[in-house]
């Protein structure tokens, strides 16, 4: 096991990793930018080190600063969290070159799964269905040709991407022509790579992902699925497990299929395979996330397994220490992403200073958040304030606990999406477990909130 881990991230995930290190008895150093000096992780850590200015290009994304911080503080491993450098194979490689361990998949594994398009081909060859799509698009003419072949509507997607950036839905050749250049420049700006591909767009789909863990020795388990169908512009808003859209037989089948494919493809450490499931129940593999996911707590609540600790142990070269039979998922869990956004004002991120702050409690309630009263939310980063997760023996009770907890949650001084969550919980489509990924965007969030207030 490691002696000391450098936590190269911020916000709630830095805190989550700090907690995992403490429970493992591993030392931890929180690396923070100047804007995060007052962040809870930096405040709670036994050791914290400032790595650069607020701009993440010069701090959380600056590999030499992070590695130098690890070396001068005597760390032997770096945990990248999610986002920033979490899936950057170049970073993983440089970390290793400095005799440090990258907590995540080894660099060569990250490299193998770096291109979404290549990953779809690789896992397709190991038995996963993929959405009909194109290869890398050479130019607009090539894109039009490929769209004709796979059929409209189609989605333009950046190969390097994530988080919905550079993605465009096109229903006609004309729309494709106008969207192609915009997607290309967006992808270039967001990921430094303007490679695009096309994918057939499936209407009325659910987003279901399978959590897997694979150790260095090839032992692999899945930890069930998460349903992340409540999305706004391709950003997850609410996640739950198990998925209300799958029967027990089909969830088992999908998870086992995913696990076999990923193990055969030589994956290592924690990973999440994302699928789109259409109205017929067919699951299409879309991408893999080679990191700990934002929504990991709901899996932890149902399985009782600390995923971040597991991730650290695997990176340290330990065996999984559990078999598939040891992974038992109990009850139902839902996570609400609490965001500093104003749903009534087109979700513009809201800054501000947290006034009163009250975290809900009671059975099955968990809050992962870096907030505290008086905390000034830096304007440089994303709008995630925290994650409220609830667990109950079944879905109906989980919804009831979720609503009760959301009513208790108080974040003064900042506009949040708490009311949107309550409105979604009260919506019949959600209650019936029939939410598809396009619902929030189709209906609009303001009507949701308005309906919830009635």
């Amino acid at each position, binding site marked *: 096991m490691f002696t000391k881990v450098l936590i190269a991230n911020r916000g709630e995930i830095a805190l989550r990793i700090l907690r995992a290190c403490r429970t493992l008895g591993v030392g931890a150093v929180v690396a923070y930018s*100047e804007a995060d000096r007052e962040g809870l992780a930096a405040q709670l850590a036994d050791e914290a080190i*400032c790595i*650069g*200015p*607020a*701009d993440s290009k010069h701090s959380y994304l600056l590999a*030499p*600063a992070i590695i130098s911080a690890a070396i*001068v503080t005597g760390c032997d491993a770096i945990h990248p969290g999610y986002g920033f450098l979490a899936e950057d194979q170049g970073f993983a490689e440089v970390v290793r070159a400095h005799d440090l361990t990258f907590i995540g998949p080894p660099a060569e594994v990250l490299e193998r799964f770096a291109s979404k398009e290549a990953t779809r081909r690789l896992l397709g060859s190991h038995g996963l269905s993929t959405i009909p799509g194109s290869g890398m698009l050479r130019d607009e003419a090539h894109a039009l040709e490929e769209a004709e072949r796979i059929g409209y509507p189609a989605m333009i997607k950046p190969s390097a991407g994530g988080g919905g950036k550079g993605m465009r839905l096109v229903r006609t050749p004309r729309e494709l022509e106008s969207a192609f250049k915009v997607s290309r420049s967006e992808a270039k700006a967001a990921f430094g790579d303007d490679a695009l591909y096309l994918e057939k767009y499936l209407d009325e789909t659910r987003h279901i992902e399978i959590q897997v863990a694979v150790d260095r020795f090839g032992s692999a388990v899945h930890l069930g699925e998460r349903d992340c169908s409540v999305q706004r512009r391709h950003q997850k808003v609410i996640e739950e497990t198990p998925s209300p859209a799958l029967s027990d037989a089909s969830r088992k089948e999908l998870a086992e299929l995913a696990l076999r494919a990923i193990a055969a493809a030589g994956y290592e450490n924690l990973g999440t395979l994302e699928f789109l499931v259409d109205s017929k129940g067919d699951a299409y593999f879309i991408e893999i996330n080679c990191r700990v996911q934002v929504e990991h707590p709901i899996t932890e609540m149902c399985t009782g397994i600390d995923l971040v600790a597991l991730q650290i142990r695997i990176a340290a070269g330990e065996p999984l220490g559990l078999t598939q039979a040891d992974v038992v998922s109990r009850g139902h869990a839902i996570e609400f992403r609490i965001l500093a956004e104003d749903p009534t004002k087109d979700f513009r991120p809201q800054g501000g200073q947290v006034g009163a702050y009250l975290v809900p409690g009671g059975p099955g309630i968990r809050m992962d958040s870096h907030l505290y009263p008086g905390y000034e939310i830096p304007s440089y980063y994303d709008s995630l304030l925290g994650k409220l997760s609830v667990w109950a023996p079944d879905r109906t009770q989980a919804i009831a606990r979720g609503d009760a907890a959301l009513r208790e949650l108080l974040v003064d001084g900042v506009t949040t999406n708490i009311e949107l969550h309550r409105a979604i919980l009260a919506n019949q489509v959600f209650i019936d477990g029939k939410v598809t990924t396009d619902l929030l965007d189709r209906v609009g969030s303001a009507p949701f909130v308005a309906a919830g207030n009635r």
Partner: protein
Amino acid sequence: MPAHQQVPAVGPTDADQALRVQRDHEAIGRLADDLLPALIAKLAASGLGEIEVRESGWKARLRKPAGAEDGRRSAARGAAESHAGHGLVSVRPAGGHGRVTEDRDRRPREDDEEASEAEPGRVSATSPAVGVYHPRRDLAVGMPVRAGDRIGWVDVLGVQQDVAAPVDGLIGSSLAEAGEAVEYGQELVRIESPASDEFDGPGAARRPTVLGNA
């Protein structure tokens, strides 16, 4: 205060109120006259994105506008002429009166230094990066430096990053040892402000600037 003891009021008396208002005015005056110019100089010279100082119940925060100079080295070199361009100055009470010590308890050690460095004439050269600090070998207390002069470097994975004097002045006490691991923004060397005739006289322009060359 015996006079006050006779007043049966539970809340703050008018006299208390007036005293507090007066103190606030004094604090604002001090911030505007002394602290802000020093802070602006530091912000311009250091390449920091934001500086916050707490003093006697007040908090002053300066933030560089987005898109402003973010190359640390050039920011340091251009320190003298770039004072004007840095907007966004906010001054407000830090969470009510009498809470300053509470706040301080939880803050990292640099803080007290940050507050004291805000006194006129007490600024420091700060670290441009996380790494190992090496002062220039000929660095000595009392040595005159110009804003932007290299007074040492921080070794970041074998790459030297310059530590530059943020303002004209005299080298003061060292706040970090040679070979010490330092973090970004850490204060390394105090720069004392010289008596004005020493530096701003006609001879000042002819004084050779000591640069680089460790």
